[in-house]
């Protein structure tokens, strides 16, 4: 099994000593699935932490206005799955699905939990990764509440310009909380 991409990702995010790194890399299983496969449904508790090798995934909430609100996208190289449900081991309020056919490495809560108990450095790594996720989530919260549609659009494209190529625009519009027609207008008018 090829864990090279995961090894590089971890060493860049939070360098571990060789022994801890090898332990961490030993608990992953390959997993692949077709496009539009729901990995975890609302009401389930997330069993797995995924590391994306290929494909795009989307977390979304089914709300009261018949719209699906897109909460998060994941694509390589990054972790995936319903992080909050995974870390708290409580039922999720939203869904995770693949948008394209996807390849992952994945591991279970039990394995990560055991590693965190045995190796303080792995626990610190998880804390560090979670802290940056929290930072990103709160920044996005500010953008959603305070930014105009055009500001949201510009911010997204400055931060992650490649998503325009890999994610259907209707999902990007949903992610920004703006109308799909507004999104395509911005696509035509905004010069970066």
């Amino acid at each position, binding site marked *: 099994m090829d864990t090279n991409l995961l090894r590089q990702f971890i060493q860049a995010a939070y360098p571990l000593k060789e022994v801890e790194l090898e332990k961490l890399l030993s608990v992953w299983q390959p997993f692949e699935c077709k496009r*539009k*496969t729901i990995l975890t449904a609302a009401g389930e508790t997330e069993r797995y932490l995924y590391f994306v090798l290929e494909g795009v995934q989307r977390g979304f909430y089914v709300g*009261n206005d018949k719209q699906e609100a897109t909460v998060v996208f994941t694509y390589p190289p990054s972790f995936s799955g319903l992080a909050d449900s995974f870390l708290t081991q409580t039922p999720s309020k939203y869904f995770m699905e693949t948008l394209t056919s996807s390849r992952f490495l994945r591991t279970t809560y039990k394995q990560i939990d055991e590693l965190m108990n045995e190796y303080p450095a792995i626990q610190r790594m998880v804390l560090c990764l979670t802290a940056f996720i929290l930072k990103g989530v709160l920044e996005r919260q500010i953008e959603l509440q305070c930014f105009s549609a055009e500001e949201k659009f510009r911010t997204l494209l400055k931060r992650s310009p490649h998503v325009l190529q890999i994610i259907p625009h209707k999902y990007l519009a949903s992610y920004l909380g703006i109308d799909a027609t507004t999104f395509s207008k911005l696509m035509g008018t905004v010069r970066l």
Partner: protein
Amino acid sequence: MQKYKSVELLNQLQADVRQLILTASHLKTTDPGVLLEQPAAGKWSVIQVLEHLNSYGNYYLLAIEKSLKQDKPATALFKPGWLGNYFTRLMKPGNNGTITNKMQSPKNHRPARHPDALPVLNTFLEQQQYLLELLESAKTKNIGSIRTPVSISKLVKLKVGDVFRFLIAHEQRHFVQIENTLAAINGTTGKYPAVHPVM
């Protein structure tokens, strides 16, 4: 007969159940009046369809749980039985999401008209979560040698792998009916995520 890799089959069935949970979650945001409306005299409302599925869930989920207590460890491959395959094919919607073979439901599974939509939807969703857990625990069991009695006759026992297959195919079949029912009432289509037929 086609053999399946046991874990892949169970993963696929879980993905199918999650798709049903997604559609049912959308139904929860739909006007209850629409869900309770019969599209024509004698035709079931969406809630009646779900009530019908719940009545099967009541029987099968407990029957499956009981049979999975047997201590028979998992095998890599699962070979469907001929009767289990026949039932699954009978139930499964066509690849284009259509149903050509209409069937009559047994008398004890014909739902009354229900006054309240939400409890029926919630029961359906709870049953699907339970079904997901049963599929998960089945990954450690031999789904070819463990058998579960069917609802028509306790004397007929099918491989639990086949019971999962036709139970979920039966749900998919009725979710096509739900789409058609809503289309007949609203005069619209494509409002809800499609039920993807697989395998």
